[in-house]
């Protein structure tokens, strides 16, 4: 992998095998037995090879490799921009712009999906109905039991089963 051309036309590539990564240049193993970064090396104008291995940047030339020490200044800035106004308290009806992780029931007649951090069940072609109050965590992900009767929901910390939206959620484990 990682085929690349040297300025003088030689071809370099990385040979990846279980337990070893070797840099091959012009048909010869140039870097072997190192924890080599398995993608394209860089060639300098004078034909040296720059590559990464073992957490260091190295330069190979004439059969010898040496670590290239470097420092870098990385400025960190706090971005200054107009932040979007969010309304989390109003109860005015608003359009839902998307849903997540829909799943079809085994009989093909209902869909369970997550939206607005809640669980919805909807007959195909019908109207979604929200679940009962679910535990207040994030990342609701609907699943489905094999029997197809009760969606299993994974929330941030636990898994719950809801009996067809008609009974209270029951926690079934961590």
């Amino acid at each position: 992998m990682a085929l690349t051309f040297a300025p003088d036309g030689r071809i370099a590539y990385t040979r990846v095998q279980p337990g070893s990564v070797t840099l091959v240049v012009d048909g010869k193993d140039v870097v072997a037995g190192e924890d080599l970064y398995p993608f394209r090396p860089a060639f300098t104008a004078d034909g040296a090879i720059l590559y990464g291995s073992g957490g260091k940047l190295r330069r190979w030339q004439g059969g010898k490799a040496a670590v290239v020490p470097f420092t870098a200044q990385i400025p960190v800035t706090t971005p200054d921009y107009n932040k979007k106004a969010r309304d989390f308290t109003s109860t005015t009806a608003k359009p839902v712009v998307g849903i997540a992780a829909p799943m079809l029931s085994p009989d093909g007649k209902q869909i369970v999906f997550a939206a607005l951090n809640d669980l919805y069940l909807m007959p195909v072609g019908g109207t979604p109905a929200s679940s009962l109050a679910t535990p207040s965590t994030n990342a609701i992900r609907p699943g489905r039991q094999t029997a197809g009767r009760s969606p299993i929901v994974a929330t941030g910390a636990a898994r719950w089963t809801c009996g067809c939206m008609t009974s209270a959620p029951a926690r079934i484990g961590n």
Partner: protein
Amino acid sequence: MRKRFDAIWEPGRPSFGPDGQTIAYAAFKPVTGRYREGASQILSIDLATGKGTYRPVFDGKSLGTRGHDGPVWSPDGKAMAFVFASTLWVAPVAPDGSFTGAPRQVSTELADAPSWSGDSRSILYLSGENCGWCRSLAASRRPCLAA
């Protein structure tokens, strides 16, 4: 609950194969142990032996998002649906999760979150165009959700 395989980095949702003997899920496979570059493949776990096998969906290619984009085993165990290059594909599979034929593309629009009907004849997926369409493998597309 029993742990059945090693912890890995952000795998996808698991899917049971026929008779519950194999679990398949999208898993990231790095090229080497040090660096993070690699490809997302289908990892199949044999529950009897605990052995895991990584298989790419196509040689040298990677799945995109792992979370809810498959692989999803059909209830009859004969196929897996997955999202590759943002569209929906279906491949015939053996009970161990290996492909027995070439995958075929079944959507040309953006697709996400595939799931099967119990009779293995329909796949529901989230459509990039219209926030949810039902598509049966045998019939034409029809809407399931209000836009």
